[in-house]
């Protein structure tokens, strides 16, 4: 898996996550009406300077853009050919600019601080009759299930290959999902046994306002 987070600390790591998220929201609204590709290109250069200021690891992450390139090229050619080249250049640089800026936040913010920023937004869940701790637990469950599922799939695939000598087929999926659902039900039983409740707890901690 390609890890998103840059493990070496930089100045951008110290900026609070909420501020960074606010900044990309404002920026995305600001660049939307800009139609001059030269202004956008200047912004793109500025973003690349920020990448350079974060060190070599950050610059190496620019390679993550590679899968986006064929699509952007197709859009540029189509738009330049059908409409005008300056408009094509503007939309491509705008997309590159925003993708690079938003990726900066992902590279320099831990998942935990992102979840912490979300917590106040999710607090009203209690009023909908849901336990406000659910989103964080759900995210943790997903991150734990993914490697479990991948290794379960690998076992099935190896057995299939040993039997047939062919690449994994869609025939493996139904029983794979049926087994995964069984595993999920066992996890649910384990959570229930540990007193987890999807409804907000009726007990209040001392100092909590009811």
């Amino acid at each position, binding site marked *: 898996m390609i890890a998103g987070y840059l493990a070496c600390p930089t100045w951008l790591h110290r900026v609070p996550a909420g501020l960074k998220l606010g900044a990309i929201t404002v920026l995305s609204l600001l660049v939307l009406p800009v139609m001059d590709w030269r202004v956008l290109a200047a912004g793109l250069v500025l973003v690349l300077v920020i990448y350079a200021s974060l060190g070599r690891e950050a610059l190496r992450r620019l390679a993550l853009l590679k899968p986006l390139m064929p699509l952007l090229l197709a859009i540029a050619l189509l738009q330049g050919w059908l409409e005008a080249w300056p408009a094509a250049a503007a939309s491509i640089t705008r997309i590159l600019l925003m993708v690079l800026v938003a990726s900066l936040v992902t590279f320099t913010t831990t998942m935990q601080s992102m979840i912490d920023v979300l917590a106040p937004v999710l607090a009203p869940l209690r009023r909908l009759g849901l336990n406000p701790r659910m989103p964080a637990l759900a995210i943790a469950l997903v991150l734990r299930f*993914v490697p479990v599922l991948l290794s379960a799939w690998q076992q099935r695939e190896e057995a299939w290959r040993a039997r047939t000598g062919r690449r994994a087929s869609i025939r493996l999926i139904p029983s794979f*999902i049926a087994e995964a*659902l069984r595993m999920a039900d066992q996890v*649910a039983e384990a959570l229930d046994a540990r007193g987890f409740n*999807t409804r907000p707890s009726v007990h209040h901690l001392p100092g909590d306002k009811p």
Partner: protein
Amino acid sequence: MTTREFVRVALFAAIIAALGLLPKIDLPIAAGVPVTAQTLGVMLAGVLLGPRSGAAAVVLFIAVVALGAPLLAGGRGGLGVFFGPTVGFLLGWVPGVIVTGLIFRAFPKLPAGISAAAASILGGIGVVYACGIAGLVLTTGMPLAKAALASLTFLPGDLLKAIATGVVVAAMPASARMRASVPQP
């Protein structure tokens, strides 16, 4: 929402992620064309979990991607995805999975495989493409007709996945299918 439903929502978000990260899978129905199976996971979420939990699973998956986990097909992830030209296809999964679930539930008399494939074509392709094309127009300023034309390149692969959804659902043990769609007391 019971604990059981809650864990199944998390499980399906993980299944969507896992199917996107797997090496390509052979589809025997299409002369063995290899495809990535991520959208297959989205269609299956609508059919097997129903509209409400299916949508929750997709929202959870998109949230985990936004938080920085590289779980999209090909190992992409992070906030950058949400400013790329294909963002509409990603966000379109939410209404897409709801429509898929609603249509599958609307035809309980049909064989499960057939209604699952039909629901996947209407919800998983029709609705998702509508959102995806709108996203292309908004992010790139392409004219609508051209954006629609450009999206057609992905249509054959997605049609195969909708049919594959039907094949998978038909082959699921009936007990798993029932337990997945009937709410537990």
